[in-house]
């Protein structure tokens, strides 16, 4: 169901695991599936110099976190905020429809981490203008069992 690139990132995720003394941490849980993502950042001069993720999430979530953390590294906070789940999906070469929301998990965890940093350091970031740390998104689906 996932393409090769997704599988590669999923099976061998980049930047997975614990970070010591992060400068910022963002947590985001998916209301759709109950999964959870944590992104930790090291930030120097408003540039993301290191990123790590931890997740309790599906293949799509892990792969999205892997590319997301890759992509934000070396970027300024403002640049990182411009990245959306669309960019992660493109980088992954696509995700199956019902798995799109998992990439939002990564996007939102990144935003939450930067928001955490901005709060701590009293930064006003253009990209966080409309950011609502309590925002949700909707999804509705139904199971089948065998």
């Amino acid at each position, binding site marked *: 169901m996932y393409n090769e690139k997704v599988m590669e990132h999923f099976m061998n995720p980049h930047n997975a695991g614990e970070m010591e003394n992060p400068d910022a941490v963002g947590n985001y849980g998916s209301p*759709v599936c109950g999964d959870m993502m944590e992104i930790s950042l090291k930030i120097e001069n408003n540039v993301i110099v290191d990123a790590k993720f931890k997740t309790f999430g599906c*293949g799509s979530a892990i792969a999205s976190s892997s590319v997301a953390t890759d992509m934000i590294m070396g970027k300024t906070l403002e640049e990182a905020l411009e990245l959306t789940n669309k960019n992660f999906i493109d980088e992954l070469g696509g995700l199956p429809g019902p*798995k799109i929301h998992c990439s939002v998990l990564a996007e939102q965890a990144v935003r939450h981490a930067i928001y955490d940093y901005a709060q701590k350091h009293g930064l006003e970031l253009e990209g966080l203008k409309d950011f609502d740390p309590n925002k949700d998104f909707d999804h509705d689906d139904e*199971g089948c069992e*065998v």
Partner: protein
Amino acid sequence: MRQVYLDYSATTPVKKEVLEAMLPYFTEKFGNPSSLYGIGLSAKSDLSEARAKVAKLIGTDEREIYFTSGGTEADNWAVIGTARAKKAKGNHIITSKIEHHALLHTCEYLEKEGYEVTYLDVDSKGFINLTDLENAITDKTILISIMFANNEVGTIQPIKEIGEIAKKHGILFHTDAVQALGNVPIHAHELGIDMMSMSAHKIYGPKGIGALYIRKGVVIPNLLNGGAQENKRRAGTENMAGIMGFAKAAELAEANLDEHIESITSLRNYFAKEITSKIEDIDINGDMEKRLPGNINLTFNYVEGEALLLYMDAKGIAASTGSACSSASFTPSHVLRALGLPLEKIYSSIRFTVGDFTTKDDIDYAVEEIVKIVEKLRSFSAFNKE
């Protein structure tokens, strides 16, 4: 790569003998059993032998077996049929919270029409409470439908006791025995079962064929109207190859039942012992006594189910979350919810089912790989023991 299939509850491969029993019916013996000439008449008599084999597996008369397109159709027929047949008596159905969706969604469909349904709670191991059941009965109750054994956690219900309660109150009793068939001794008459759903593809038969047992004397309207097949109770040209396959599978199941149960149980227990001794923080869901022989349902705390399944798949190991249909589903298992598991445990739970082709080697391989996978996934899990 090595392939280890541990999802026999989802579906089983067709056994060699079963396929052989089916093959002639695609080609030389392709006749329609409703036809008057040679190949039609012989199909008709083969059909009756097949019916007898299925009947034997569940201790009923062959005239009480009606072939359907599977377990789902049988469930729909029993419930909708009873609802229509007993409209004058009442509109209340009692079932449980852990039924298969074929049952639950059928009940929900009837609720929209004004029927009332009581969904009985289950305890932490998945058993319904017989007192609850008896208390739920009203003078409008027309059907008790409680599954024989659950497809996710394997819990086997006290069917005989339920049958007695149903009988005492003059209420029809249906049971979804799709998972129990061939895995538990079943004597439908002795157990007081009025209707029972079965499916071939869970007992090494083909997919797309099943049956509803309807006790003699129980009258429900047809679900499929049309030709006079199945003693006029289920229309449609008979799926002869499927029926012959189902019959062969039933015959094999009947002949080897004790053996099958014993060997499957011991394999399953070996798997459970190995994996829980090699990985920390695993919970076993369901009951270890009254349980389907091949089933074990495990919570791998802090590890997400789909990720675990896909890592396993990458090593050739097939199992399932027991509820999610591939990528399309994000609803946490209604069964584990009913057992009282918190969401994160539900999302960390995997059902393994061993079957007739599983070997001890398969299990050793699977355990070894799963140990490594769980370690890796836990290393970057967002949840932790602490």
